[in-house]
């Protein structure tokens, strides 16, 4: 089968130059629910990129090759190699930090530009390599979450977090910042990759009871986070403390269930996430994604969209398929790019230099419950733009 299906409309003038961007996304496995949404974001972004390039008079066409890495490091490396062997020089993904680590050696030595929209591990903040991240590191968000919890009156919290690189690092930063603010926290890690977390939630409930904490801080991905909150909604003990949540569960469809919505209202659940709030581009992006593909923009959709855009413009700017040239072009392009996730400038480690953070809540709407951004982090404190819970 040829690639003909990709290009609607007839080719008229000179043949277009084709730029291919490779993707390695978690279409199966633990992150597959985000991966599926990301896939749609990629379609939208490539579409937009083509339109923009055309509008600027480039006779080019961007194409995406999407491979599934099942959230495993080895598969991610295999995908990156497969893409490289097709002459692809810019790859977006993989999702998890452990995967990025596994491909780092290969992309650095083969001069392939890799942009991860979601890897936030501080250990990957390494200057001079070919790895870029369009999202800020966990340390930043941990500070915001700590501030949020403290500002909302929590003094003693349980940090209930994934026992993986993301969760552990996030939790460590959170505890550090929270104690700096004057609060105290208890560490409760839970094993990832389980089918259900009812047992963990039960243990959490007894911990909450015995330790008499004011709040639970949940640091999770979307599926596990959704699962945990659904079970927590069943428990009177867990419904009686405040909940503060990381970006993971934002957008998870199962949190719009009435039971969870009611739970959120009762516990005044608030979450943080990397977000350039009040960004009209983002609102537009969200709307078009919903209209065209029927999916809600969830976590890291904006950073992924921007990653695609940056990659495309960098390739156009470099004009060659030399990895080093694209790398420099990317850094340049990012300096002037304002996208759905805000300003895209990279720091010396290739990570997003200025990350803004917003606060979200689950609020009642006409049709049920929905996610809503209700505040921003500004100069050391949270400023609410809306009152989420009465």
């Amino acid at each position: 089968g040829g690639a003909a299906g990709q290009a609607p409309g007839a080719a008229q003038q000179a043949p277009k130059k084709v730029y291919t961007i490779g993707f390695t996304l978690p279409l199966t496995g633990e992150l597959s629910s985000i991966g599926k949404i990301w896939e749609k974001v990629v379609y939208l972004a490539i579409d937009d990129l083509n339109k923009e390039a055309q509008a600027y008079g480039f006779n080019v066409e961007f194409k995406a090759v999407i491979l599934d890495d099942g959230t495993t490091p080895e598969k991610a490396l295999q995908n990156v190699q497969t893409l490289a062997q097709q002459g692809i020089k810019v790859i977006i993904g993989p999702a998890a930090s452990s995967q990025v680590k596994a491909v780092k050696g290969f992309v650095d030595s083969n001069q392939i530009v890799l942009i991860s929209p979601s890897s936030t591990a501080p250990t990957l903040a390494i200057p001079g390599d070919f790895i870029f991240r369009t999202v800020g590191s966990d340390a930043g968000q941990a500070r915001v979450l700590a501030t949020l919890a403290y500002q909302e009156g929590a003094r003693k919290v349980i940090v209930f977090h994934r026992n993986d690189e993301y969760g552990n690092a996030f939790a460590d930063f959170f505890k550090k910042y929270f104690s700096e603010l004057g609060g105290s926290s208890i560490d409760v890690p839970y094993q990832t990759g389980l089918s259900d977390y009812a047992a963990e939630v039960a243990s959490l409930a007894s911990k909450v009871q015995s330790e008499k904490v004011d709040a639970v801080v949940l640091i999770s991905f979307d599926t596990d986070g959704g699962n945990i909150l659904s079970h927590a909604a069943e428990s009177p003990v867990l419904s009686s403390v405040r909940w503060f949540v990381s970006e993971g569960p934002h957008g998870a469809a199962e949190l719009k269930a009435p039971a969870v919505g009611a739970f959120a209202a009762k516990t005044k659940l608030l979450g943080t996430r990397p977000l350039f709030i009040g960004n009209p581009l983002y609102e537009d992006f969200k709307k078009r994604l919903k209209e065209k593909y029927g999916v809600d923009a969830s976590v890291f959709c904006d950073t992924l969209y921007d990653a695609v855009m940056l990659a495309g413009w960098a390739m156009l700017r470099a004009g060659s398929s030399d990895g080093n040239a694209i790398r420099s072009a990317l850094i340049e392009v990012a300096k002037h790019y304002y996208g759905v996730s805000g300003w895209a400038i990279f720091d010396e480690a290739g990570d997003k230099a200025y990350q803004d953070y917003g606060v979200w809540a689950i609020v009642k709407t006409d049709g049920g419950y929905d996610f809503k951004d209700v505040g921003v982090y500004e100069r050391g404190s949270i400023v609410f733009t809306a009152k989420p819970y009465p």
Partner: protein
Amino acid sequence: MLPGYPYSILNFFQYTFFYILFSIPLTLSYRNTKVINFAHANFISYGIYTAVFLNGLLGNTSLALACLAAFAVGGSIALVNHLLVFRPLEKRGASMSLIMIASMGLWIMYNYALYMLADIAHYYTLKNFISYGRIVYADVPEVELLGLRLQQSFVAGGLAALVLVASLYLFLEKTTLGKAMRAVADNPVLAEISGIPRNTIVNLTWLIAGGAAAVGGAIWTSFSGTVTPTSADAMILQVFTVSFIGGLVSLLRTGLGAVAIAFIENVGIAALNTYFGVPISFRPFLTFVTLLTILIAFPPLGAAGGLPFRFRSRKVRAE
């Protein structure tokens, strides 16, 4: 009072029901066919997704209907696997380990097929099926007992587990066909020579194994906070663990295994956490430690083999 009470206790029962629904079919299928069926996870996940699709596409809110449909789907998948793959392989003289790997192949296929189905369903409804929240059913009551609210899944799971255990007991112990089932497992060729319709029995076995596990899956949708196409894969090791405690052949021991593992995973870890500060992230660790302890302390006989070897053989006495 036990830590985590009463949730841990409730969860303990809840999980016991699920492990019975998931593991007893596995034990049954191994016992009667000697196939270690890796595709067992598919029965569960297709049971889950039968309920999910019924709910998401047709708005069904009847758990009874979901269970019936799941039984049909799970049972058919198991039968199709057997008729199109396992039996032809066996006829051509494939070893059991080869059939086991064929079941791995099937497992992979069904997993991706499920993702494809979810994609197609998304295309038509624009709903997210890759991660689906808990379903609230209209036809199962929540029961108040001693001031405790027993969820729908508790009621339905308890009922289904009871039905499965009782009907299997009656069938295996009280009917000739049930006894014949054991004979087929024991010596298939002789069973045929004795006039036992081995094919019928094996077909029936697969139907029950696939169907019952899928019913468990359907009920799971009313329990778990979120289901994904990999929900079943994520728990299959536990399910196998329970069956292994049963020596893969004894239904009774499998039932006890279900109780033991459910207890350890819920009450056990909560107690260790409370009294010894063991992090709850050790839950799967504990499951496997339990399995190892049981395997080493009481090695199951039967399928387990057993070597007449004594580590402390009596010292030779000479004159």
